[in-house]
C-alpha cells in the first residue's frame, strides 16, 4: 500500500511541469508549507516556502518587500536574495524548498520558478570540541552547518586551489555533502576514487558520518579505522595541507579526513605547535602507549602463567605473594578487571561531569582496592589493567584506541594458551593484516609497510617544519622551498 503511494509520488516528482499543486501534494500538504500570493505590478506572484526552514526576517525584507515595490518585472535585478536560480522541474523545486529556499512563481507561467535563498541558520557558537582537546592551538571546532564549516576551513586555508565539490546523498531524505581538497597538493587518483565511491552511495538516508564511512572505506572487517573523523578545524586544515581530502556532511560537526594511514591517528595539532623535539617525543609516547596497551595484558599473562622464570627474582616474589590468594587464572583475572573497567568507562560517559568525577573515584579506587583486598584480583593484575587503560586514553583518536580493546582480548587469549609464542602469533597476524590494509589505495601501515625511512620524518618523529621540504610520497606534486632557515647562514660568524 505504502509502496504504491511512494511510487505514485515518485512519478509526480519526475513530472517535468512545475505545478504548485503537485509540489504541495508531494510534500503531503505538510502544514508548515506556506504560500502567499503577491500582487505587484499587474502580476500575481506566488511565494512558496517551508515555514520552519525559512528565516522570516529575510523573507519579509529581502523578498516580499522588494517584490511588492517592484516596478518592472525583472525579478533577477530587483530582489535582494543573494542566490537566485531557476527551477524548471518539481524535483529541483522540492529539493530547493527542503534546503530552505523559497520558490517564486509567476502565476500563469507555471513552467518556470525561481529559487531564492532565504534559509534560516541555526548556527551555534563556534566552540572547542570536547573530544579532541589540545593544550595549545585554535579553540575552533566544526559546527552543524555545512556552509559555516566550509567557512571555518577556508579562513585557515586560504588558497586558490581550495576546491569544494557538492553532492546530495540519500534517496528518500537528502543530505548535502561537500568534498574539499587543495587541488595542487592532492593526488588526483585519490580524488577520483573518493568521487566514485561517494557517487555510488545509494543509501536511503544518511544519518551521520558513520554511514558514509561504512560505504566508502576500503576494508570493513578490520578493527582499524581508515578514515579520520575530527571536529577540529585546524586538524582538518593541516590534513588538507598534507594533501588529504576532507568530507563535510551537513548537520554533523564531524568531518571525515581521508585517506588516513595508521600514523595519522597519532598526530595531533599540538605536535606542530610545540617545538619539534617535544612534538616528536609526545608522538613517540603515543605510539609506545599504543603498543603497551595492546600487549601489556598479554605479556602479563604470558609471564605469570608461563615464563615466570624470565622475570627478575624480586618481581617474582612480589607478584607471587599477591597472586597466591587469587582463585582464578591470570587470564580470567584480567578479564574480570577489563570488563569492570569497560563498565566504568561506559557508565561515566553518560553521567553529567559533576557526578562523573565522584563516580570515577568510587568506581575506580574503591572497587579496585576492594577487589584486591577481597582476593579477586592481584595487585599485579590491577596495575596492568590500570596501565593499559591509561595507555589507551593517551590515544588522540577514539576509534584507534578502541581498536586496542578489540585486538587486546584475542591477544590475551593467545597468551593464555601459548604464552610468549601466542603473542608472537597474534602480533604476526596483526602485522599481516596491517600490511594489507589500504586507505584509498594508500598503504595503511606506511611508512613501515612498505618500509620507507624517508617518510619517517613526519610520521614517527616530527622534524622541524623547515626540514619537511618534500611532502610524503602520496602527494608528489609539491615541494616546499628549503630556505626557511637561510638567515642562519647569514648570521653565523666565525668565533675569531
Amino acid at each position: 500500500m505504502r509502496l504504491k503511494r511512494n511510487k505514485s509520488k515518485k512519478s509526480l516528482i519526475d513530472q517535468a511541469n512545475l505545478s504548485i499543486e503537485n509540489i504541495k501534494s508531494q510534500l503531503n500538504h505538510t502544514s508548515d508549507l506556506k504560500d502567499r500570493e503577491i500582487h505587484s505590478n499587474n502580476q500575481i506572484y506566488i511565494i512558496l516556502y517551508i515555514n520552519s526552514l525559512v528565516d522570516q526576517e529575510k523573507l519579509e525584507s529581502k523578498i516580499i518587500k522588494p517584490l511588492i515595490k517592484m516596478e518592472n518585472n525583472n525579478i533577477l535585478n530587483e530582489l535582494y536574495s543573494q542566490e537566485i536560480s531557476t527551477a524548471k522541474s518539481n524535483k529541483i523545486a522540492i529539493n530547493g524548498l527542503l534546503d530552505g529556499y523559497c520558490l517564486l512563481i509567476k502565476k500563469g507561467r507555471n513552467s518556470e520558478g525561481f529559487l531564492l535563498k532565504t534559509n534560516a541558520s541555526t548556527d551555534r557558537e563556534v566552540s572547542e570540541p570536547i573530544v579532541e582537546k589540545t593544550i595549545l592551538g585554535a579553540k575552533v571546532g566544526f559546527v552543524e552547518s555545512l556552509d559555516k564549516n566550509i567557512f571555518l576551513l577556508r579562513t585557515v586555508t586560504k588558497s586558490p586551489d581550495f576546491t569544494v565539490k557538492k553532492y546530495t546523498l540519500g534517496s528518500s531524505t537528502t543530505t548535502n555533502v561537500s568534498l574539499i581538497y587543495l587541488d595542487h597538493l592532492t593526488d588526483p587518483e585519490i580524488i577520483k576514487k573518493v568521487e566514485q565511491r561517494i557517487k555510488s552511495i545509494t543509501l536511503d538516508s544518511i544519518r551521520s558520518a558513520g554511514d558514509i564511512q561504512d560505504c566508502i572505506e576500503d576494508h570493513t572487517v578490520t578493527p582499524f579505522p581508515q578514515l579520520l573523523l575530527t571536529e577540529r578545524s585546524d586538524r582538518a586544515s593541516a590534513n588538507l595541507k598534507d594533501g588529504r581530502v576532507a568530507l563535510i556532511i551537513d548537520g554533523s560537526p564531524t568531518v571525515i579526513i581521508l585517506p588516513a594511514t595508521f600514523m595519522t591517528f597519532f598526530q595531533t595539532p599540538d605536535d606542530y605547535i610545540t617545538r619539534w623535539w617535544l612534538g616528536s617525543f609526545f608522538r613517540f609516547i603515543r605510539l609506545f602507549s599504543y603498543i603497551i596497551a595492546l600487549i601489556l595484558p598479554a605479556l602479563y599473562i604470558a609471564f605469570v602463567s608461563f615464563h615466570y622464570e624470565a622475570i627478575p627474582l624480586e618481581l617474582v616474589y612480589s607478584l607471587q605473594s599477591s597472586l597466591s590468594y587469587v582463585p582464578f587464572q591470570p587470564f580470567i583475572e584480567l578479564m574480570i578487571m577489563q570488563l569492570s573497567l569497560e563498565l566504568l568507562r561506559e557508565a561515566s560517559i553518560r553521567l553529567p561531569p559533576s557526578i562523573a568525577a565522584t563516580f570515577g573515584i568510587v568506581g575506580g579506587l574503591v572497587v579496585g582496592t576492594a577487589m584486591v583486598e577481597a582476593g579477586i584480583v592481584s595487585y599485579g593484575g590491577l596495575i596492568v589493567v590500570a596501565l593499559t587503560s591509561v595507555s589507551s586514553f593517551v590515544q588522540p583518536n577514539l576509534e584507534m584506541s578502541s581498536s586496542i580493546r578489540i585486538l587486546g582480548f584475542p591477544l590475551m587469549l593467545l597468551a593464555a594458551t601459548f604464552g610468549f609464542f601466542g603473542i608472537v602469533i597474534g602480533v604476526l597476524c596483526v602485522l599481516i593484516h596491517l600490511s594489507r590494509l589500504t586507505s584509498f589505495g594508500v598503504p595503511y601501515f606506511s611508512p613501515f609497510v612498505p618500509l620507507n625511512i624517508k617518510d619517517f620524518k613526519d610520521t614517527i618523529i616530527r622534524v622541524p617544519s623547515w626540514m619537511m621540504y618534500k611532502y610524503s610520497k602520496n602527494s608528489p606534486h609539491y615541494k616546499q622551498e628549503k630556505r626557511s632557515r637561510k638567515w642562519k647562514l647569514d648570521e653565523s660568524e666565525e668565533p675569531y
Partner: protein
Amino acid sequence: MRKTELFLILSILPLLAGCWDERLLKNSRTVYISGFDLDENGDYQTTSIIRDMNISESSRGEISISNDLVTGKGGSIKEASMTIDQSVPGYYDPAKGRTLILGIDVAKGDIYNVLDSLYRDPRVDLNAKIAVTDNSANEIITHISENEVEKGEYLYELIHSSEMYSKMQEITLRSIRTYLFDEGKDFMLPYLSKDEEDNEVKINGAALFHDHSFTGQFLSPDESTLLLLFMEAQSKKALLTEQLDKKADGSVSYNVKSVSRKLKLEKEEKVHADIMLQLDVEIVDYPPNHLDKQEMINFLENRLSEILTEKADALFKKLAANQSDILGLGRELIAFHPSIWKEIKGENYYEHILVNPKVKVNVRSSGIIL
C-alpha cells in the same frame, strides 16, 4: 578474502581451549639455594630452601612467607628433586635457584653428573653461582635456613661481592660448562666453610679443579686474586696488601688498575711458559712513607715486583702440583702452538708445562695525596 579471514579466526578459537604448558606462578615453590651431596650408597641428596607461602586464616588473608628446608634422595639429581616435589605443596621448581652448593663428595667426583639435569632444562637460570663446601652441602644449607640473617640471597651476594673484588673467578652455571668441556682450561670455585666461632658461612678461598673434579686444594683469596691478574680476568677492583718488611707497620695496600700480560711459550725439554705481567697500580694505603720522591716510587715498585714474583712462583708451583690449568695454557697451546700441543696432549698435559712468572709493578697513582 573476507570470508577466509573470518573462517581462519573462527577455526583458531577452539584451539585455545587447552593451556598445555601453563605453569601458574602462584603454584610454584621457587628455590633459593640448592645443594647436592653424595651419600655412602652412591645416592644423591638434594637439599633446597624453598619459598613457601602460608595464607593465615585470621587477618584478611594476609600472607606470611616462610623459607622451608626440604631434602630428597635419589639415584640421580632428577630423581632426588622428584622426591622433593612429592613432599611440597604446589610444585618444586629449581629453575630460579640462584646458588648451587656442591658437597665435598660430589665435588671430588665428576661434577658434571650433578649439573647435567640442570643443563637439560631450558628454564634453569644459567646465571646461578656455584660453590664448593668443605663439608656436606646439607649442613651448610641447614645452617643457612636456621640463621635469619643469611636467608635468601645472602650466599649469592657473598659470592658476587667476592667476585667484584677479584677474589673469585667469575663462574656461573653457564660458564662452568665451557670449562668442563674444554680440554685446555680449568677453573676454580668459591670454597665455602662454616665458621664455628662466628657461626656463619664464609668463603675460605678458591677450590682448584682439574678436569671435572675438585683437587682437594684451594687457594687463599689473595692467591686467587693474583691468579686472576695473571688471567687478565680481574674485576674493576683488585685490592692487594703486601708486607714490605718483616716489621709490622711496613705494609702497603694497592689497587690494580690495569694489567698487561706477555706470554711466551717455548718447547724445550718441557714447555716453558714465560709470563711477564705488568701491573699498573694505585696506592691506596701506605702509612710508613710518602711517594714524593722518584726513589721512593722506584723502591716501592721494585719491592712489590719482587714480592709478587715470589708469590707467583709459589702459586704456580701449587697449580702444577694439582695439575690445575686455570690459566688456560693448554688452550693457548691449542690455539697458537698446535704442534707443541700435539706432543703433550692428554689428560695430564700440565705436567709438561713449566711456568716462569715475572711481575713488574708500576705505580701510577696514589690517591689525592702523594
